[in-house]
């Protein structure tokens, strides 16, 4: 089997894997939250059941919806799938790896956001517009902070390509990077904001007036909603695996080292279990902040990321 063919097969495997396990991560986070609140919870498979239910329903679409409203769920899903597919989840040398430039990644997320915000305003309900407006407030602060985190990492590896960053951090001699500690805290804050988690947004709320992400998708139903929900869980997985690639890249298989794959799979599982539990813990102990605290929150994230860069220049590490 040629290296190229096996590479493509492997790319296919990873792409399918992320799509398949993304709802599981969400289910795990929800299950951990339930346990932390003394509830028994719906089980880790609940997101799959929700998706199945939604795919079986008939979609209800407003009469004045434009084609944009209909295609947005597919665009959203494709963007998130692409993003999760190019992140080095299991191995660094994938045929799509050259595309895994961190700046391009930020661009993919931004593209998805533009479409969902436009679709939210498309029907003209007040909640959609409200949600789109708030989403943009959060996004325009989160994006520069995210870029700063990436720059800190790329200063160490002299590249904005995720596989190169992983190679530099994981497969060279073990070094502690103080700058990366700051960047890691900033990244977690951005992850919470970008994935509509507490304390910035509340993914489980039913209060229309407080919603950010949920307000934008209130008008979606059935398969459209299913795709959006699925895309959201893939986005969470993508962010989590980007976090792994930057801060705990250990276990990701080296280029061409196929034997390391089973270990990489186990490492990914362990890291996801830990990250999901950590996320649930963070969400359980925090309350949602006022929307106008979000700029402060993301400002802090930005500041931490910049501090990380400064420390890199000061200490050279």
């Amino acid at each position, binding site marked *: 089997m040629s290296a190229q063919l096996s590479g493509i097969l492997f790319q296919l495997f990873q792409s399918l894997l992320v799509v398949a396990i993304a709802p599981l991560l969400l289910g795990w986070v929800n299950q951990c*939250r339930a346990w932390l609140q*003394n509830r028994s919870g719906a089980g880790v498979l609940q997101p799959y059941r929700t998706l199945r239910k939604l795919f079986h329903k008939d979609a209800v679409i407003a009469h004045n919806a434009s084609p944009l409203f209909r295609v947005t769920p597919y665009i959203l899903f494709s963007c998130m799938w692409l993003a999760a597919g190019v992140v080095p989840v299991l191995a660094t040398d994938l045929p799509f790896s050259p595309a895994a430039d961190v700046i391009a990644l930020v661009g993919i997320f931004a593209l998805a956001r533009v479409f969902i915000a436009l679709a939210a305003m498309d029907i003209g309900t007040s909640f959609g517009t409200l949600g789109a407006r708030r989403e943009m407030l959060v996004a325009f602060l989160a994006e520069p902070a995210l870029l700063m985190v990436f720059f800190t990492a790329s200063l160490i590896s002299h590249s904005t390509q995720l596989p190169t960053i992983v190679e530099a951090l994981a497969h060279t001699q073990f070094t502690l990077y103080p700058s990366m500690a700051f960047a890691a805290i900033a990244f977690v804050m951005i992850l919470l904001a970008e994935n509509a988690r*507490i304390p910035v947004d509340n993914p489980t709320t*039913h209060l229309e*007036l407080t919603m950010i992400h949920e307000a934008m998708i209130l008008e979606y139903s059935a398969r459209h909603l299913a795709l959006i929900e699925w895309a959201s869980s893939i986005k969470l997985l993508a962010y989590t695996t980007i976090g792994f690639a930057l801060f705990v890249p250990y276990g990701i298989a080296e280029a061409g080292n196929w034997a390391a794959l089973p270990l990489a799979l186990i490492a990914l599982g362990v890291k996801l279990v830990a990250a999901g539990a950590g996320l649930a813990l963070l969400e*359980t102990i*925090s309350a949602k902040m006022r*929307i106008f*605290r979000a700029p402060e929150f993301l400002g802090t994230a930005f500041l931490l990321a910049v501090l990380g860069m400064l420390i890199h220049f000061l200490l050279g590490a």
Partner: protein
Amino acid sequence: MQLEDLNIEFHALAGAIPAWRAQIGADRLQPVCAQVRESGGRLLALWGSDERANGQGFALHVALATHPGLLMLSLALDANQPAYPDISAIFPPAERMQRAAYDMLGLCAKDAVDQRKWIRHGCWPEGQFPLRKEFDFTQKMATGLDAYPFIPVLGDGVHEIPVGPVHAGTIEPGHFRFSIVGERVLRLEERLGYKHKGIEKLAETMDALQGAKLAGRVSGDATCAYAWAYAMALESMTGVTPPPRALLLRALLLERERIHNHLGDLGYLGNDVALSFGFAQFWILKEDVLRANGALFGHRYLMDRIIPGGVACDLPPQGKARLLAETEKLEQEIGTLRAIYDEHAGLQDRFLTTGRVSPDRAAKLGLTGLPGRASGQAWDLRAQYPCAPYNELDVRMATHRNGDVAARAIVRVEEVLESLRLTRLILDKLTEGPLTAPVPSAPAGAYGIGMVEGWRGEVLIGLQVGADNRIARMHPHDPSWQNWPVLEHAVIGNIVPDFPLINKSFNLSYTGQDL
């Protein structure tokens, strides 16, 4: 203020609470109201009745709370042109009650600024008044468009958000119209009445004993308060005094209703700031209380446990030990959860200064009940007009002066703790004895009033009985009548996403005032 100052001939109403009644002329209404207001009194309720069957016209009933007790003013109105002077300029809460009195009976408040319909919506044509005796509620009426004229707010960048009546969560229906700039609320206008179900009309087909069941269903979460208020009204007109054990059990049930509702609200307040931990913990406690209710009294929400003449359930022999153990556990758990709420920076940041109603504004707008006490309005029937058995319990009223969401949460916690203390006292005082006293038929034309401090505030029931013990008019009044309009003021200047939290901290009844 002394009653003599008003220069009206009052006659005392029999019953558990101090109350006086007087017939006054229309010209005296405004001066009397102004004098009561001046001396620190409040408007409790306003409703009308159709007295044309007795050879008179219509009547308007105004219930006022003063320091000596409850004053019931009745005005005789003309049968063809029923009109009376507007009192909403003196008592702002009167506005919606007056509008409802017009929609239901056609009683017109002359010179009132706001003459829009309130309860009618599009479901019955103008000029049809359901509470008039000739109105046949079995007939099907033509429905029309609501076309309710909301008050617009104009200006650069001002836009409206219509919310409801159907909400994303499982809550009661109500429409809220926000006028906002960015996220800031300039004005909120409520449109309620979606839960109108003809309770008052239905009551007029019942006899006085059947009415008790209906009264207990006006607002299911306050069923004990309504049932007791109704029983009190009927007992006052029939001269019945329930036996001591029954009265103690009533207080026990009412306090348990307060406890489970406050626990539920404290959980919801946590949930609304996404602190689901608090939500789950408080709701575990609430569920334990409900299960104990089911096991000991036969109904989780204590419906139909309080009946005219006494109570329909007894505390089983093993009940006392179970309730004492529950009380101790609740005190501990609430102490722990209170500390968590108090020390949670994120939660306190959301609660403090949110939805503030200053004591001045609360007094002016007539805020009452629990939100009133959180804004320095020290009214609690259990402390001020303590009827048996509260006269022996020395209820300590919980108040606060900040008037924000945090203050309302604190008052809730303190009231639960006080209710737990009362539970202990009641269990201590409980002696063996009969549970009911026989209730004879009420004399024709009798008039009774009952008032109980429910968990939202004072629940009042005005009752008139005609011939053969039939109900001629029943008016249940929920404190939400007074508090809904104040909620509109409480959100001004706050941001839109804080509205659900402010709303929940008031937790007013839709069904209780839509009737």
